[in-house]
């Protein structure tokens, strides 16, 4: 979750609280117009803070990956819908159709950046279980595609990933091509980036929360 947005929401919350307390102890002569305008502004501020806070409560964050259950399901409640609008602003699928995870941080909490090399390690048989497809897609910090010499914007069950000798799959997430591992390279920009993991028609293990997405790990410098 964007740290800047968290601070902004906290700031708005504090501002609203300050104004409410201030109003109670203010001895100024009040007009009805003031009541309405201030009530509207503070109500709006509190709605934003509530939705942001609820999004953070409902979001599931494991190994740096953020996801949320119940999106797009009829009858999921107005607070969850408002939280959805904050965290995944769009008409996304219901969980049974597709699950999405995104991250802007590695497993240790550091911001993902093309200045470092990363590896995502899926142990044998631990790819996201699904009945349709899975994919890992690269985005800039602003959620746009990343230009790269091999025109590869994602890796997936269709992109010819090569397993290691033990059946596990390593995905090399870095700015420069990894020598000897080109087929498992997901090109990163030089600056900060985000990752999207998708599993369409996700398996039971995803829907009941049993499956955990492995962390993106900073590669050790040899």
């Amino acid at each position, binding site marked *: 979750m964007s740290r800047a947005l968290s601070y902004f929401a906290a700031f708005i919350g504090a501002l609203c609280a300050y104004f409410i307390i201030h*109003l*109670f102890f*203010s001895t100024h002569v*009040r007009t*009805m117009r003031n*009541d*309405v305008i*201030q*009530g*509207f502004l*503070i*109500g*709006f501020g*509190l*709605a*934003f803070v*509530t*939705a942001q806070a609820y999004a953070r409560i409902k979001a599931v964050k494991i190994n740096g990956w953020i996801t949320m259950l119940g999106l*797009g*399901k*009829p*009858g*999921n409640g*107005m*607070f969850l*819908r*408002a939280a*959805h*609008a*904050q965290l995944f*602003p*769009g*008409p996304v*699928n*219901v969980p*049974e*159709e597709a699950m999405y995870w995104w991250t802007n941080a590695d497993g240790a909490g550091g911001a993902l950046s093309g200045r470092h090399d990363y590896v995502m390690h899926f142990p044998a048989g631990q790819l996201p279980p699904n*009945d*349709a*497809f899975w*994919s890992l*897609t*690269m*985005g800039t910090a602003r*959620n*746009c*595609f990343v*230009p790269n010499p091999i025109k590869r*914007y*994602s890796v*997936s069950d*269709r*992109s010819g990933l090569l397993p290691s000798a033990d059946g596990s799959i390593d995905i090399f997430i870095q700015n420069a091509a990894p020598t000897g591992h080109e087929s498992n390279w997901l090109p990163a920009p030089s600056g900060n980036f985000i990752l*999207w993991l*998708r599993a*369409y*028609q996700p398996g039971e293990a995803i829907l009941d929360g049993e499956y955990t997405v492995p962390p993106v790990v900073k590669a050790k410098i040899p």
Partner: protein
Amino acid sequence: MTLEHLLIFGGVCVITWLAFIYLWPSFILRVFKRAILVKGFGDGPIPVNTLCTEPQALFADPIHPPASASKLATTGVNRDTLPTVGWLDLYKGPQILHVPDMAGRYYSVQFTDPSTNTNFAYVGKRTTGTLAGEYLISGPHWKGDVPQGMKIICSPNNSVLVLGRILVYDDSDLPTAYALARQIQMVPFAGRQSSQ
């Protein structure tokens, strides 16, 4: 602060708070509505009750979108499915969704109520399979006979966002996926009756 002012301030504050929380999803969907009906994927607006598939060129080269494409076609990173979108207005009568035989390929057509951003129905591999079919999409107050062999999807709202996703296996598969996506179409129910 006197009680009178407290009540006015508090009342406005709580109503605004609840209203914005309740309406937030619809604000976001309004952006999508505008993008569909005003700008589209770059080939101009997508008329109401029509589905439009993302052009192959934009999917193949997402780095250089045409300047005329709406923000919705150019933000977000998706390299898996070819989207096909449309905005329905069911006030004047139902629409018929036609889907071709997808030959086992993953696809889904999502029906979203824009007032809550929730998906009240799906047509696609998970819910209806990949054979060809026709579905009657009606508004909440429509009454009539559903033609034989057609399933009905009753929308809770006369406005509906339709979002189709068709899996693209790889670059060489793009023309095939595109041709299939183009065959997912909306036809007015009324027009269909008079032509028969």
